[in-house]
């Protein structure tokens, strides 16, 4: 189980909301061996998928981050509050842990600062630039101690 999965999610018709999808697609092309899953939103059945990977990286647009934000996630002890319209990486990790007793060794959430959610198929130029930086730095973001390999 030495596999890495990137889950990029967002609405590809709402410009910056697609930042995670855009990043995941570029990472898959750049780093052979990294698997990529894109989706409009997170869904509970992804908990089944998580259990099969050593490293899972969630990438999404964020309205609160001011710069690229990288957070390591750990299963939480308390019963999470669930909203079917707002599934989060933490909820999925907890679900994987509760249901299967297995979680990825590393679960990382990358948030890309985003501001333009108007109708359109590509993220704004500013966000595309951040996405490209995220892709360049991807190995160091998820394994800070590594020499840059995934």
């Amino acid at each position, binding site marked *: 189980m030495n596999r890495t999965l990137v889950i990029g999610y967002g609405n590809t018709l709402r410009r910056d909301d697609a930042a995670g999808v855009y990043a995941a697609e570029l990472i898959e092309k750049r780093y052979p061996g990294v698997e990529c899953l894109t989706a*409009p939103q997170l869904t*509970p*059945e992804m908990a089944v998928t998580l259990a099969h990977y050593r490293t899972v990286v969630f990438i999404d647009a964020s309205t609160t981050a001011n710069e690229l934000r990288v957070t390591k996630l750990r299963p939480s002890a308390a019963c999470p509050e*669930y*909203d*079917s319209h*707002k599934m989060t990486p933490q909820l999925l990790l907890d679900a994987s842990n*509760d*249901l*299967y007793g297995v979680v990825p060794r590393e679960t990382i959430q990358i948030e890309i600062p985003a501001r333009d959610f108007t109708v359109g198929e590509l993220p704004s130029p500013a966000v595309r630039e951040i996405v490209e930086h995220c892709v360049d730095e991807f190995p160091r973001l998820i394994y800070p101690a590594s020499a840059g390999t995934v």
Partner: protein
Amino acid sequence: MSKTITIEPVSRIEGHAKITVQLDNNGDVTDARFHVNEFRGFEKFSEGRLLWEMPGITARICGICPASHLVTSAKAGDEVLAVDIPETADKLRRLLTLAQWMQSHALSFFHLSSPDFLLGFDSDPSKRNVFGLMAHDKELVRRGIRLRKFGQEIIEIVGGRKIHTPGMVPGGVRDPLDPAKREYLLECIPEARGTVKLALEILKKIHEEYKNDIPQFGNFRSLLVGLVSKNGGLEYYDGSLRIKDGNDNTIADQIDPRKFFDLFGEATEPWTWLKFPYYKPFDYPNGMYRVGPLARVNICDYIETPLAEAERRVFKEMSGNVGVVNNSFYYHYARLIELMFTVEKAEMLLSDPAILGKNIRAQASVNKEEGIGCSEAPRGTLFHHYWVNPDGSIKKANLLIATAQNNLAMNRTVRQIATHYIDGKKGKITEGILNRIEAGIRCYDPCLSCSTHALGQMAMQLEVLNSCGEVVALVSR
């Protein structure tokens, strides 16, 4: 002083809505309404787009039932092209429709409704969800999630994508089925069948446990409308319309779905965007009818797969001498019967060598100015009606969504539950009472529109307003 209670938004449904309950001076219920405050403009912005784009465009209406819109739109396109689609395309469209039912029905039971039943209507609302259910029955949740995943996988394999799937077109389908993927899907069938059996066993215990609540959950007679096959069997993709009343009398049968708009009208009310379809010969609002699992399982003469048929017989026995199960709570039971049907019928289709054929699309240009597509979506009968210019661009479109057809019945259900549980003399309106009112709506599993993203936290709020519109009490969760 009269008061209005507002439940907004209604949770664990697909889309955004609110419920208001009007109280009189004694605190008793005088009226209750289900309001849909979304506006869907797909008909208007489809105008001018090409017929061949319509399946892809209309699949964007909803993130839960895109395959139903895709298939129904493609069928309307078939009619405009005046083609009979190849046998393989017909089978693949049927399989996709079944997969749509499978994932949607699994979502409704395991994710949205079973937390009420297994944790209790009065249990802690912060834990009354699929994750809270894990602590109660891990294996059930695990299996429920896998069953929905299986439905989604069929959609992805047959339609090309899980959400907003694009694989159906006027004249047929885009891609043939990969034989290796067919084998994979067949391997998944036994587990899926076992999961539905387990769910049926659990639901029967729920019927016993909630026997005091169930009689209030939309227990009334109405017309029941849906498609049946040529021989009167449960139908999901083709067939003709049958209308029965709440006493099991057949009001109309073998009706060409193209005649639907002659028989059914749409009324509007100023307090909601959702229209009120009704059966014209009975006028509005007496022409109230229900569609979806409860209607389909009630009106059909048989189900062609053995396990689902055995359950249908048990279901019908519950109706006693009436011959029709009129209580909306039993939408859940009918939904699970259909879920069993989807698994059994999917196995039949996948086992048929013709499903691997390579002839999957009939080619033609525009041959008619108008086309109507009709199929059974998870929540009921779905219609797409297009008027087309000679160049294939859409002149006008009209979509009749299943949820709207249950609008009169949903409002009556809300009223019935509120009237029973809210007692002016007791004064206190508990969270459990509010949840029962919401659960009445969840019986119908309405899909108001999933195509819009919700930003921020969805709250559940009860407001008590006096006659001046001032908030005199507020309960949030």
